[in-house]
């Protein structure tokens, strides 16, 4: 079974088409990146797949469940870390995790176990009693991803997880994301080439709401005739934009 499958998935806002007849398949356990410039439709795609936005037309399935008709079922098996760090500012790191765990589980012992596990996995113990508003950007992002993972989702959506972070914080977050590879399906949006290259099993390049190319870094290099993901991306993006014009 595919973790993600879309068939002509489209999202229109009045006159603007944010996502245009997207056909996408993501395998179970894969780390799949959506790469594109600002306004390419990456976040809109993630929003539709995580049931935060209703498609204008087309179909989307997460673990075989329809994003139109089985939203409640999908919400039980996904985790999302939005672009902005969506944490409760006045709660400590532990309380934020406890709060998210309490949304999914009822047994206090299970909740405590989940919180302890995620604090250990993400090395959050040194800040666990610190209020979220006092954390640095890197720690906040880590907490945001940890909150998305507390329910042990089958599919994790990471919307530009390292946006605005310094290089060290970014590298640390990469390690955290890498440690999740294979344990769940991860859909990552980014416009950092090195991030997509470093983390992804496969990459889709989105331009103006359409996927212009999809495959491994080697596939994209071969398709564009360029060496390196950045060069391949630029070639594919420029070709894609001229086609649209």
């Amino acid at each position, binding site marked *: 079974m595919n973790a993600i499958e879309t068939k002509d998935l489209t999202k229109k806002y009045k006159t603007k088409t944010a996502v245009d007849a997207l056909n996408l398949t993501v395998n179970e356990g894969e780390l799949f990146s959506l790469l594109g410039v600002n306004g390419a439709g990456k976040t809109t795609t993630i929003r539709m797949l995580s049931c*935060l936005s*209703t498609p204008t037309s087309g179909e989307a399935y997460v673990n075989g469940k329809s994003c139109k008709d089985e939203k409640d079922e999908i*919400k039980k098996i996904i985790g999302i870390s939005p672009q902005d760090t969506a944490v*409760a500012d006045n709660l400590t790191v532990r309380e934020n995790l406890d709060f998210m765990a309490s*949304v999914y589980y009822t047994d206090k012992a299970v909740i405590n176990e989940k919180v302890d596990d995620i604090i250990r996995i993400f090395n959050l113990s040194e800040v666990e009693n610190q*209020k979220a508003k006092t954390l640095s950007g890197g720690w906040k992002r880590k907490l945001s991803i940890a909150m998305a993972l507390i*329910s042990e989702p089958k599919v994790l959506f990471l919307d530009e997880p390292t946006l605005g972070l310094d290089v060290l914080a970014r590298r640390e977050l990469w390690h955290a994301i890498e440690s999740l590879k294979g344990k769940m399906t991860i859909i990552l949006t980014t416009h950092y080439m090195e991030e997509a290259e470093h983390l992804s099993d496969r990459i889709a390049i989105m331009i103006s709401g359409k996927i212009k190319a999809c495959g491994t870094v080697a596939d994209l290099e071969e398709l564009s005739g360029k060496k390196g993901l950045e060069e391949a991306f630029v070639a594919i993006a420029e070709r894609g934009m001229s086609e649209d014009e």
Partner: protein
Amino acid sequence: MNKIKAFSTRNRKEILRDPLSYIFCLAFPLVMLIIMTVVNSSIPKQAGMTVFRIDNLSAGIAVFGQTFVMLFTALTVTKDRSGSFLVRMYATPMKSTDFTIGYILPMIIISFFQSIIIYIASFIISIITDVDLNIGGMLLSIITLIPSAIMFICFGLLFGTLFNEKSAPGLCSIIISLSSFLGCIFFDADATGGAMLKICKALPFYYCTKSARSCVKLDFSSSTFIIPIIIVIVCATVLGILSSAVFKSKMKADLS
């Protein structure tokens, strides 16, 4: 049920850890209680003006305090909506009713304890100023203030859902001013009569203060307590349904 409990605990902690909530919801009403007591001491007995006497003032200030709980409800909702926090929560199995009850419940508890503190301060003032204040009446009033607390909280939820971080507090300020003045907290409309009294009676705030004051005095007659409290309960119910429906509709629109 676990979702409501988790979300209301989060909201309670968020508000109780914000120093501004203590300044507005507690310190300011208490300061007003003291100031108006001082004003009352300056009014000659012959004037026959008793609106600032502690047996009248205590319930009025308790209602006044609730208006700031409304403000903080609106601020909490707008803050959650303006960031990505609600987006994250929308992607969880939480339903719109989990959100609305989760917002309303902790505010009722905060308002409940706010009333207790205001009545304790009022009791101390009553001893200092040598005015009889019925303890039983105050205890009962803490309970009968709950419908008006729900009404104000639902106003806050409504404004927080419909407006942004800049306009929602502004609208709450209008309600605070209207309820202070036309709710007869700092003004005796019954003594004034005429068009002013008619305007006051056309708004729910008058009945919040009237029922709370009557309860403190253990006056449970139909015109001073029963009818006003029924009006407050009806308004609280209508606003509760309205704010929940608006939140649900807004959530649906956000997810469209």
